């Protein structure tokens, strides 16, 4: 892949916690406007990759570049400011703030003015379909709405790359369908996406490219249907399920 086009670039990234290697010599690129799926059995190190990308962990070895600039050692808010936003696997809304206020916190990333932040937040809320819930405290939202809120807060920061960590987990098929539609609309706005997901049908349908992580190592990468036929991938999943 042409490096000039790649938005995000990981070179041989390793993360060790004490004696445990969570991610091992992992390389990955995400191009501008691309949708990449990151899959793998539980404990494969997917969420650790997100923590590394968003600045919550520092890699033990390797380089991470976003828009050509290293983000190793940068704090989460600095990375967010550069245009890389994320959601959390376990949703983390500010429970005592209203839906609108939650999203405003993200919107302040691009403005110091409260009125402008409010306007941007309202726009994003409409976009994700939470417009009617804007004055409800986040603790009163359903899981499905909380997942949308999580995405809205990320979107409000005006990212170029959005990391989604299992935004479909725990949702019913109708809700999943709606989230897939939302992700497509986010993509249509020119935002690149890196998605961790266990809902296979969804990730296969959405992703242009899929990367498979197993025991912290990349075991396969390619077009969704190729990856689905890969012997090592099948073994990893079947092995993990027994």
């Amino acid at each position: 892949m042409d490096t000039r086009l790649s938005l995000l670039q990981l070179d041989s990234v390793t993360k060790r916690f004490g004696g445990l290697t969570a991610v091992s010599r992992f390389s990955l690129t995400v191009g501008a406007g691309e949708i990449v799926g990151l899959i793998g059995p539980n404990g494969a190190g997917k969420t650790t990759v997100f923590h590394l990308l968003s600045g919550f962990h520092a890699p033990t070895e390797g380089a991470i570049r976003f828009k050509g600039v290293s983000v190793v050692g940068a704090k989460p808010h600095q990375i967010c400011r550069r245009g890389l936003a994320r959601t959390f696997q376990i949703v983390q809304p500010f429970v005592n703030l209203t839906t609108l206020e939650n999203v405003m916190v993200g919107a302040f990333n691009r403005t110091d003015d409260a009125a402008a932040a409010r306007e941007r937040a309202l726009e994003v809320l409409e976009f994700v379909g939470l417009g009617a819930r804007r004055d409800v405290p986040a603790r009163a939202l359903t899981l499905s709405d909380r997942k949308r809120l999580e995405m809205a807060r990320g979107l409000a920061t005006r990212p170029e790359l959005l990391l989604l960590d299992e935004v479909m987990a725990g949702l019913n098929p109708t809700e999943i369908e709606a989230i897939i539609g939302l992700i497509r609309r986010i993509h249509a706005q020119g935002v690149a996406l890196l998605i961790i997901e266990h809902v296979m049908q969804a990730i296969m349908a959405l992703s242009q490219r899929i990367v498979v992580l197993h025991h912290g190592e990349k075991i396969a990468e390619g077009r969704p249907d190729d990856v689905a036929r890969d012997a090592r991938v099948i073994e990893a999943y079947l092995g993990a399920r027994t």
Partner: protein
Amino acid sequence: MGAEVLLGLALGALLLAPPFLPPYFLEILISVMLFGYLGAAWNILGGYAGQFSFGHAAYFGIGAYTSTLLFLNLGVTPWLGMLAGGVLAAAFGLFAGYLSFRYGLRGPYFSLVTLAFAEMLRVVAVNTKAVGSSLGLVIPNREPAAVNFIFAGKLPYYYVILAMALAAVWITRRLERSKLGYSLLAIRENEDAAEAAGVDALGMKLRAMALSSFLTALGGTFYAQYFAYIDPTITFGPSVSIQGLLQAIVGGAGTVLGPVVGAFVLTPVSELSRAAIRGRAGVDVMLYGVVLVLVISFLPHGLMGLRRGRGNPPRVPLQ
């Protein structure tokens, strides 16, 4: 609308009634305003940012000692000394805050460190001859002069502290609607999520720290000028730190009016109990203890929580 009319009436009463009040009530009102003011200052860091300082006495003491020492030794007017104390306190707050936040101290650990910082200053003050050791400092009674922050009666002091309390409430109101305010609330709710949403947690907390300690120090100067006497235990002791947070917690932490409402409830309670049981020190603080336990058990969002559910500390923290 009803609430605004009520607030307007209360403000009118606070502005106009005092000249006609007997001195005893005026004294109580001054206490109410001072504690409400200290509560509001604490509230910025404790209520909004959720960083529970147990050591705001440090800033109070710095304010009281700075202005008094400048006045006694160099003849600098306490009005200027007040600002100097505020700046010094903010600097100390930034130092203590940077150390604590930089090394990731959260929750109770932060509380303990702030307590330790205040106690260290107290010990230093007790052992430093130049600031009067444990005997403290007296501002000798001299000619009343507005320039020197010395007034003839209690009334001018009342209007000074009223203005300070109103200013603190106004600042809180402004804060609540600003980027800083939203950022602090987000940090209080969930610091990691706030960071991920682009909030510079360290920077924002330090701003709250500086503002809170600056304002607290101004209260220290007021105290010194009003009572004309300060000593290490009064100014740096744990009771000052507790006073500030008590008003905010009882009234409602993280609300604009909470600290002032808290002061209006707590101060009369303590005055009445002191009047009821004379000659026995400690009754008022004992009642504070009871009130604190009761409020946390039954009104975890403070008195303001009776009105609405927003902007209050989480009863159930996430994870």
